[in-house]
């Protein structure tokens, strides 16, 4: 069964450093998403991406965050200058179309020290 894959599974980074989290969505999907879950808190929507542009973003997704689809298969989340509070599990997801089931990856656990 096709699945969303994410790398790395776990990354430790120093505060102020740039981090790129990578995702390979399911191949025939058109909508891509990032969610995050801070330890002990709810899973939160960050951003959705369609047709090579952001279609919606939350207030969490400020200027330090960016997303990109650099080629036909990868979808990346960049955090420009990490803060301690960016420590969280980041989930990538994709869906075939608007209104279809959203499929999630296994998550990338980011620890900022």
């Amino acid at each position, binding site marked *: 069964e096709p*699945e*969303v894959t994410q790398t790395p599974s776990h990354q430790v980074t120093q505060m102020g450093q740039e981090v790129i989290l990578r995702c390979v969505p399911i191949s025939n999907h058109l*909508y891509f*998403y990032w*969610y995050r879950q801070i330890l002990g*808190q*709810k*899973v*939160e*929507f960050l951003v*959705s991406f369609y047709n090579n542009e952001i*279609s*919606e973003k939350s207030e969490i997704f400020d200027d330090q965050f960016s997303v990109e689809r650099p080629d036909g298969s990868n979808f990346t989340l960049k955090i420009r200058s990490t803060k301690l509070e960016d420590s969280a599990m980041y*989930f990538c*997801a994709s*869906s075939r179309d*608007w*209104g*279809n*089931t*959203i*499929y*999630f*990856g*296994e*998550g990338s656990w980011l620890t900022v020290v």
Partner: protein
Amino acid sequence: AQSVTQLDSQVPVFEEAPVELRCNYSSSVSVYLFWYVQYPNQGLQLLLKYLSGSTLVKGINGFEAEFNKSQTSFHLRKPSVHISDTAEYFCAVSEGRGAQKLVFGQGTRLTINP
């Protein structure tokens, strides 16, 4: 604004016992409702969803949920649980057609004891 409340952070049950995981939501418009499960060291997997039609929705692994509009609830049930059902369960809601932006509850950790 939408919100989702899962009333129990942890639910321990014995194997083969029934279980109900509670979920309540608030929204000013029509909503679409989902339950996701996260097994240890895995991603979020869709268990079931309610978009329209019958209020009783059946999902994978023997789970079902009932949409109750008057009580704004979408409780998840299984008549007989197995050890393999040990996982974190998340209720989520989206407004309008489809599920582009999901609002999640805080999750319920279901632990099955032999």
